[in-house]
């Protein structure tokens, strides 16, 4: 999921995808075509939902858009810049919330992770705000594995919006 609006105040659209394709090489040497040929543009401040049956490449598409996975053809641009790594200002709410939250950190520390270079009062204040945004006040010192799946996903959202 992409948090739109933080970037892309220039003239060009926020995201431009041109003839994006992605092939995997599996262990036995066979080639899997995960994404065939995808093109679209997305303006700042708008929402986009990608829908499809399981295994059709939605996660692969998002990982390519986030710069977490190199694509094998075409181009992805953020505010006109081709992406190489995860772009500045992009936040990701991972699908696998049970695996992307760190089980050794409590909820507050998980949410504070993106702010680790900020001074402590700033971290605390912004984490508290993010947690109240997802209605998780009072769960700051719980561990993720003590929460329900939905609550874990909300922690993950709080971590994405905290920066």
């Amino acid at each position: 999921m992409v948090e739109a609006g933080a970037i892309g105040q220039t003239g060009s659209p926020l995201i431009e995808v041109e003839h994006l394709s992605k092939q995997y090489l599996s262990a036995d040497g066979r080639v899997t075509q995960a994404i065939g040929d995808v093109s679209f543009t997305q303006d700042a401040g708008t929402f986009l939902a990608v829908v499809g049956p399981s295994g059709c490449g939605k996660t692969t598409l998002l990982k390519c858009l986030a710069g977490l996975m190199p694509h094998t053809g075409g181009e992805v641009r953020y505010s006109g810049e081709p992406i190489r790594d995860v772009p500045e200002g992009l936040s990701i709410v991972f699908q696998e919330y049970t695996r992307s939250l760190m089980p050794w950190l409590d909820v507050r520390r998980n949410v504070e992770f993106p702010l680790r270079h900020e001074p402590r009062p700033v971290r605390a204040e912004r984490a508290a705000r993010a947690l109240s945004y997802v209605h998780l006040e009072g769960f700051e010192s719980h561990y993720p594995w003590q929460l329900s799946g939905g609550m874990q996903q909300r922690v993950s959202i709080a971590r994405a919006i905290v920066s």
Partner: protein
Amino acid sequence: MTSSPLTERSLIRRRSTQHAVATSFSLALLAVWELVGQAGLTPFFPPISSVAVEVSDILTGPQLTRDVLPSLGRALIGFGVASVGGATLGICLGYFRSLEPWTQSPLEFIRSVPPPAVLPLAVMVMGPTYTMRVAVIAFGAFWPVLLNAISGTRHVDPMYFDVARTWKASSWEIIRRLVFPAALPQIMAGMRIALAIALVLTVLSEMIAASSGLGYLVLQSQRLFALDRMYAGVVMLGVVGWLFTVVFAQIERRVLVWYEGQKGLRDG
């Protein structure tokens, strides 16, 4: 499954009965030892009571600072060096996989050498010193920590690396904030094995070119046929090993609260 208060109470009662039976069994074993010793059938089994007297003599006499405490010190320092070194090198080797082809064969060979085999070499090179014994202990205790740290690091969920990239974490931050805590349960499992090895090597290293320590005390007492004192040394080593295990288990539980909690939730 919900259990009624009745079955829960009977469970507690059964557990305390078990505890009582286990305790009386241990006491019975000690009583047998005492009786056999008192009977004086063989000089090799002095009664446990005279061993106990010897233990208290050692703990209140000059041997406490000459033999007992130095042994504990060597064991703990060797264990500490092995733990820090093994964890550090193991995380590096697990994380920077390009090092593997260079390090694999030498490490495989060196770790196959039984640690006592390097003792004569250590005595020759470093002399019969405190540092030499600590070095031998650290050498033996190093391997389980190293191997567990390598494997723990390799099995860190790759998902965390995506998370780290999203927030622009540096290599150092990834190691310190993700790899180290994620691999810690396995590192501590290696440390538990290392602790037992450290104690074995403490005793052994004090039996060669030594003039102090619990290992020295046991060997020297045997040579002088002071069997009460020899048994006292053996008993104290047993108690020390047991204490190490108990204390380490407590520390492990504290440090890995999150891991135990998560596992408990998943398994039960």
